[in-house]
């Protein structure tokens, strides 16, 4: 698993490649928090390259979303495949996050 972070305008875009699970979630958390500390406020996590996500991966997303909101920022998610959509629906996290079908849509509507 690896993360690719880049900026697109004033939006920080994170690609999660592979699994987002207990063994690597801290890495994602830290990198996003670093950006938040630097003053970034708009975050998009793109899951088009993601395999599966476990409960601690979901937990990190919840906690990042909260921290970003506390700073007046926003976290959006994009490109969940059908399996990941189901995971978010099962846990009702689809009601907590702004989820866009495509990266473009997510970037446009920030």
């Amino acid at each position, binding site marked *: 698993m690896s993360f690719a972070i880049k900026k697109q305008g004033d939006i920080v875009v994170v690609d999660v490649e592979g699994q987002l699970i207990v*063994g690597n979630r801290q890495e994602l958390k830290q990198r996003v928090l670093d950006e938040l500390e630097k003053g970034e406020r708009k975050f998009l996590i793109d899951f088009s390259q993601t395999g599966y996500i476990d409960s601690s991966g979901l*937990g990190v997303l919840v906690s990042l979303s909260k921290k970003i909101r506390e700073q007046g920022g926003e976290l959006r998610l994009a490109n969940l495949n059908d399996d990941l959509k189901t995971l978010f629906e099962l846990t009702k996290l689809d*009601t907590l996050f702004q989820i866009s079908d495509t990266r473009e849509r997510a970037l446009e509507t920030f």
Partner: protein
Amino acid sequence: MGASNSPSFFPDRVHIALEIEIPSDVRYIERVVEIVAMQCAQFAYPARQRCLNIPVALSEALSNAILRGNGERVGARVQVKVDVTRERLILEVLDEGLGFDFEDCLTDPTEPGNLEREDGRGLFLMTQLMDRIERFSNQGNVVRMTLTRND
């Protein structure tokens, strides 16, 4: 080995049993999941089960065994037993802990008060993604999950 992919010559009965042992280190989880997913691919389990139900439920059971059961004590082992046929998958995850009361520990993360909690989704996902969960003690704490193939 092209022509052999003809499903008509798939054996009547294939039964695969795996035993895997890992140290209490979460970095092993991904590889164990991969090995198990590969076995289910042999039987051409539906993509949904191979890519969602099995990996997520197994990851949860493994991380609970490593972090909760064995408290991440390096020397403590986690054993995984997998038993697959075309019809169903049985996963057993064994840790060296004292066990726990499944019903007591299971919470509903979809309740409004829990939705923004960072933890507490593991056992819930296991119950949602598997057809049956059992917990018992057998020289350690065992969580057994059964999934029936659904296509």
